[in-house]
């Protein structure tokens, strides 16, 4: 088991190093703009640990987490679903429209809304999946195009379905009735704000993700394809089918991204100011959390914590955009550090294995992995 500890150590060391580097960069930026580093950190920490803000952090983190999960399903198979952004917006819009037309018992209503969102998300991702499986079109470019198309499509449909939102010049879909509201959970003591009930769904999704990938045949096939497509084919995996299935699943989970807001927010509709860009944040979080359910949960909370600290930075006259720099730096440095750690890990293990075996055998073979 010593070996496992080495691996865990490396796995933890990588994000820690990246985070430290990002903190350093952020501190340097603060210094360069003449802001005090230590007291800024103090202010952010004090603000971020208030019960209400913690609840906010959890709420936003839930959304981020779902988005990261959707991205990670693709990542594990070496597929880049850049299109989570379009998938969740279209899904949330359709779910909002369907929900507003329903009047059913609460559980049924919520289930239908969620199912609609997952279905629409999966269908939108399915376009990219079909293009890849049948025509060999790279999912990177097709999902980007589908994002842009979704933006126009949602704008158009919203104008068709819109009603004025009271008290503003915002437009949105007709609100879903009270029966479609998913109650919050008073998770944080002393917080006036409840945490989205959807956090349970997100946690459940994380468990399903972990179990399905790590413990099932399907998950093994998916990971094998991501690790070596040629070996997966030789082992009997139907790669085209896996591409379609995993993109559909990714899209379905992407459909969930808008649900905490839609079912747990106050307005329960899809309006012009429905949050956008969550899909890209999801990519960042999946990278930071290394596609690991717990890692992504922590990364989502970190991003969300940084987001909420923007408000207090603004109040303290420190430019809140420093948060974006921190987030960007952490992502870029984490991918570099992961790659370095991976190389180091592989080389170290090869060395160790050949050392442990030295004497037991004298093999003149070329070192593994270097051969043609």
């Amino acid at each position, binding site marked *: 088991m010593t070996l496992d500890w080495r691996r865990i150590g490396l796995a933890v060391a990588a994000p820690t190093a990246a985070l430290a580097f990002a903190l350093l960069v952020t501190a340097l930026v603060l210094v360069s703009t003449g802001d005090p580093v230590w007291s800024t950190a103090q202010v952010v920490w004090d603000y971020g640990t208030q019960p209400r803000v913690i609840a906010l952090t959890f709420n936003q983190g839930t959304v981020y987490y779902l988005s990261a999960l959707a991205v990670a399903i693709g990542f594990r198979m070496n597929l880049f679903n850049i299109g989570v952004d379009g998938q969740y917006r279209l899904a949330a819009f359709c779910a909002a429209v369907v929900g507003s037309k329903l009047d059913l018992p609460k559980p049924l209503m919520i289930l239908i809304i969620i199912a609609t969102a997952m279905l629409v998300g999966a269908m939108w991702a399915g376009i990219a999946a079909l293009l890849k499986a049948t025509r060999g079109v790279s999912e990177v470019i097709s999902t980007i195009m589908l994002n842009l*198309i979704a*933006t*126009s499509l949602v*704008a*158009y449909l919203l104008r068709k379905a819109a009603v004025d939102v009271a008290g503003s010049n915002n437009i949105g879909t007709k609100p879903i009735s009270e029966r479609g509201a998913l109650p919050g959970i008073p998770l944080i003591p002393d917080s006036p704000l409840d945490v989205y009930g959807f956090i349970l769904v997100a946690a459940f999704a994380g468990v399903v993700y972990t179990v399905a990938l790590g413990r099932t045949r399907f998950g093994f096939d998916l990971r094998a394809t991501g690790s070596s497509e040629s070996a997966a084919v030789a082992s009997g995996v139907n790669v085209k089918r896996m591409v379609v299935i995993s993109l559909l699943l990714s899209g379905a989970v992407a459909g969930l991204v808008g649900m905490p807001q839609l079912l747990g927010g106050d307005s329960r509709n899809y309006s012009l100011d429905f949050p956008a860009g969550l899909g890209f944040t999801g990519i960042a979080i999946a990278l930071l959390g290394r596609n690991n359910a717990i890692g992504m949960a922590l990364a989502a909370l970190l991003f969300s914590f940084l987001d909420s600290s923007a408000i207090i930075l603004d109040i303290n006259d420190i430019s809140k*955009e420093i948060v*974006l720099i921190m987030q*960007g730096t952490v992502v870029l440095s984490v991918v570099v550090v992961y790659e370095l750690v991976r190389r180091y890990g592989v080389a170290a293990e090869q060395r160790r294995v050949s050392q442990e075996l030295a004497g037991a055998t004298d093999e003149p073979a070329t070192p593994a992995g270097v051969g043609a």
Partner: protein
Amino acid sequence: MSLLDKPAGDPMKTAGAPHRVNHRFRLPTSGPVRVLLALGALVFMLSVVRVVSGANDITSSGTIGAALALSIPIAMAGLGGLWSERAGVVNIGLEGMMILGTWGAGWAGYQWGPWTGVLVGALFGAVGGLLHAVATVSFGVDHIVSGVAINILGLGVTQFLSVVAFEGVPGAGESQSPPLANIREVSIPGLADPLLTLQKKEWFFVSDLAGVARGLFTGVSLLTVVAILLLVLTYVVLWRTAFGLRLRSCGESPSAAESLGVNVYLMKYAAVVASGAFAGLGGAFLAIVAGNGYREGQTAGRGYIGLAAMIFGNWRPGGLAAGAGLFGFTDSLQLRRGGESVHALLLLLGALLLAVAIYLAVKRKLLPAAISALVGAGALVWYATTDEVPGAFTTMTPYVTTLLVLALAAQRLRMPAADGLKYRKGQGG
């Protein structure tokens, strides 16, 4: 790429005379001639559409001029993609580099004039490119992952810098630079008025040609001229010089390049930094020529669209220009009575797709033929049953076109063989 070289050419004709992708060393004079012929054919078809549908704006000088201006940032982003991918590095970070370019241009432009803004914009983009090169070439990070990270970082950095640099500057705000002086516009003298007269006659083909010529040759920003020259220059550098051959060899077979003493890392660095500079230049164009200063969110995904234009153009400068032109054209239509114009284009699209379907059917590619026929027929039905296309559909036209092209022609696209692959020194052989 007959389908892509002449987006408006009659596919049946090109089917009769299939030409090979590789015509680099043959028929040196035929390139410009072919382009002119293709352009003529395009104008002719638009002219037919205009007369049939009565959508007079689709070939007006205003539309064409706007199309040109709108296509330049896309073309510059596409050039960025071309440089990078020809050296084997996928650059999805173009969007972030472009954002850096818009900001750099806005920041330097209001202080030291627009041309300095252009340079600084390119420089900012190049810094983004350098970052991408460090991550992908030196550290072997997955190209897509690094690109996504750069997009996030580019957005964050510019928003932060805006607050720091533009606070308290008159005319500026947290999310925009002060207004910038514009770059001079140039025209071929003595053309503007007669062409306008001609265009107003609404004669078949002649008026259309006049409109197109007026749009292309009058009131053009100098930066547009520079950008077009850069397209030509890219072709010359990448396909005619030793440097270009070495750079492209890194995208086709880095191990072959290395075995012949080419410094693969250096070439890749050069290409990706240049790529960033081009994207930054596209951003600068947005800030200085298209807009009136830097504004947050100004790029609106044009980095991605540039990438699409490059793929549409089969990783070649000419094709890329055609792609960027197409995107710019559909973009410009929606500015000028878009609903009607795009509606008219449905007719063209329908006819073209049916022609493609027949071509494919003859070639016994039944599934793509059926898809083309179906979509083509759909477009015609849509044309016949409506009078206007909603604005949102105009917006998505370029993206849908890209998807269609990819779906129908993906097998014929030829990306550099080692594009997107990790490369480590000494791994070859």
